């Protein structure tokens, strides 16, 4: 067994530097790597590019990095929940590359799987396709999109083992599996870190080969963005 465990978040983020490109899992605030984000805030590195479906809210998730002006560029599909984000974007402090959500996921998966690029119909005929190669297949038009290149991927899983194998929970899965192995170094934080052999190999979502460092996460807040309930009657 090849061991991937590191002592904690500080060791896990060893090597992160100003100007790097990071992938961060999560959809809204669901399944975000809370520990890695806190450590990036503490380290105070700047000029970073973040590939993440959303940009957090003002006081949680990637919003914490925005507050400290650590992010130079965001690559996201939807950024509507964050006033500070909007302010920085409109004032030109923050560069933003809006990407269709399925394309964003596939640019991660392509990087993971070794494809330099792929064709997708999403965005054809819109400003997203500006400057990109387009091509017809079977009478339909497609846009050529390139795989992401990133230095670190920070993902959050539910359970993991010493070998780096991961299992996700519910819709906290989202972009996390697509980002594993899609950057030079993948760092996984888990709610429950177990000895090798504790997880059933049949139920692994992401094999450990895609993960370089894994650690037991601490103090998960798991904030809910839109608490919607129905009444018992």
């Amino acid at each position, binding site marked *: 067994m090849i061991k991937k465990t590191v002592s904690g978040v500080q060791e896990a983020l060893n090597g992160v530097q100003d100007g790097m490109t990071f992938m961060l899992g999560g959809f809204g605030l669901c399944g975000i790597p809370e520990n890695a984000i806190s450590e990036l805030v503490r380290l105070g590195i700047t000029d970073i590019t973040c590939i993440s479906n959303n940009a957090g809210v003002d006081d949680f998730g990637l919003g914490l990095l925005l507050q400290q002006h650590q992010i130079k560029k965001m690559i996201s599909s939807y950024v509507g929940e964050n006033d500070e984000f909007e302010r920085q974007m409109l004032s030109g402090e923050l560069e933003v590359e*809006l990407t269709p*959500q399925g394309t964003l996921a596939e640019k991660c998966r392509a990087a993971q799987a070794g494809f330099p690029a792929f064709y997708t119909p999403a965005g054809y005929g819109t400003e997203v396709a500006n400057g990109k190669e387009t091509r017809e297949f079977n009478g339909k038009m497609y846009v050529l999109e390139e795989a992401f290149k990133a230095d670190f991927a920070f993902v959050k899983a539910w359970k993991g083992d010493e070998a780096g194998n991961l299992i996700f929970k519910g819709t906290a899965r*989202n972009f996390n599996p697509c980002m594993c192995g899609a950057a030079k170094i993948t760092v996984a934080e888990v709610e429950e870190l177990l000895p090798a052999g504790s997880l059933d190999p049949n139920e692994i979502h992401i094999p450990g080969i895609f993960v370089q460092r894994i650690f037991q996460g601490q103090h998960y807040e798991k904030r809910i963005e839109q608490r919607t309930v129905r009444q018992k009657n």
Partner: protein
Amino acid sequence: MLDKNGIAKRIAKEVKDGYYVNLGIGIPTLVANFVRNDIEVEFQSENGVLGMGPFPFEGEEDADIINAGKQTITTLPGASFFDSATSFGMIRGQHVDLTILGAMEVAENGDIANWKIPGKMVKGMGGAMDLVASAENIIVAMMHTNKAGQSKLLKKCTLPLTGVGCVKKIVSNMAVLEVRDNAFHLLERAPGVSVEEIKKATEGKLIVEGTIPEMVL
């Protein structure tokens, strides 16, 4: 004239037994409340769940189980979770039978704009561009006119496009229309709305053939 629930109720009649359906945020989300309960339908949410159920009871919310609107939800028997690339594989690969989404503008050639108002609102397209580019069966839920009374069914979209030539059907607060051959074809009127009123509220080319029935809700 229909309200938002009325639009959702009319669209629900388009949902057939055995359909996998993706519902957008806003009016489309309401459609789930009106689907007949004698048919089997599974709702897909692009953040990674198939077989979405109603909102949880108070105290049973789970931060790890949400829909694409970031609302806490539940799942029904037979549900599954999956990653974002798989989710858009379902959409791009045309495994989802029906997509229902909102629009700011639709043009007579089927172009749709619903993600950006330059200088005002730039939140992003989310999954809308993937959905409209791939879905074979798209229904747009929208208001026929804006708050100033101007038509949102246009000759040509004025806002940045989400997709080209993709809308086939619209259910508005005034009418049901089919979009084909570079025109809006009037199929049904909302209760109490006349063909004349619909003509006045539609800037794009409107085809009215024969007697137009009133919607049955």
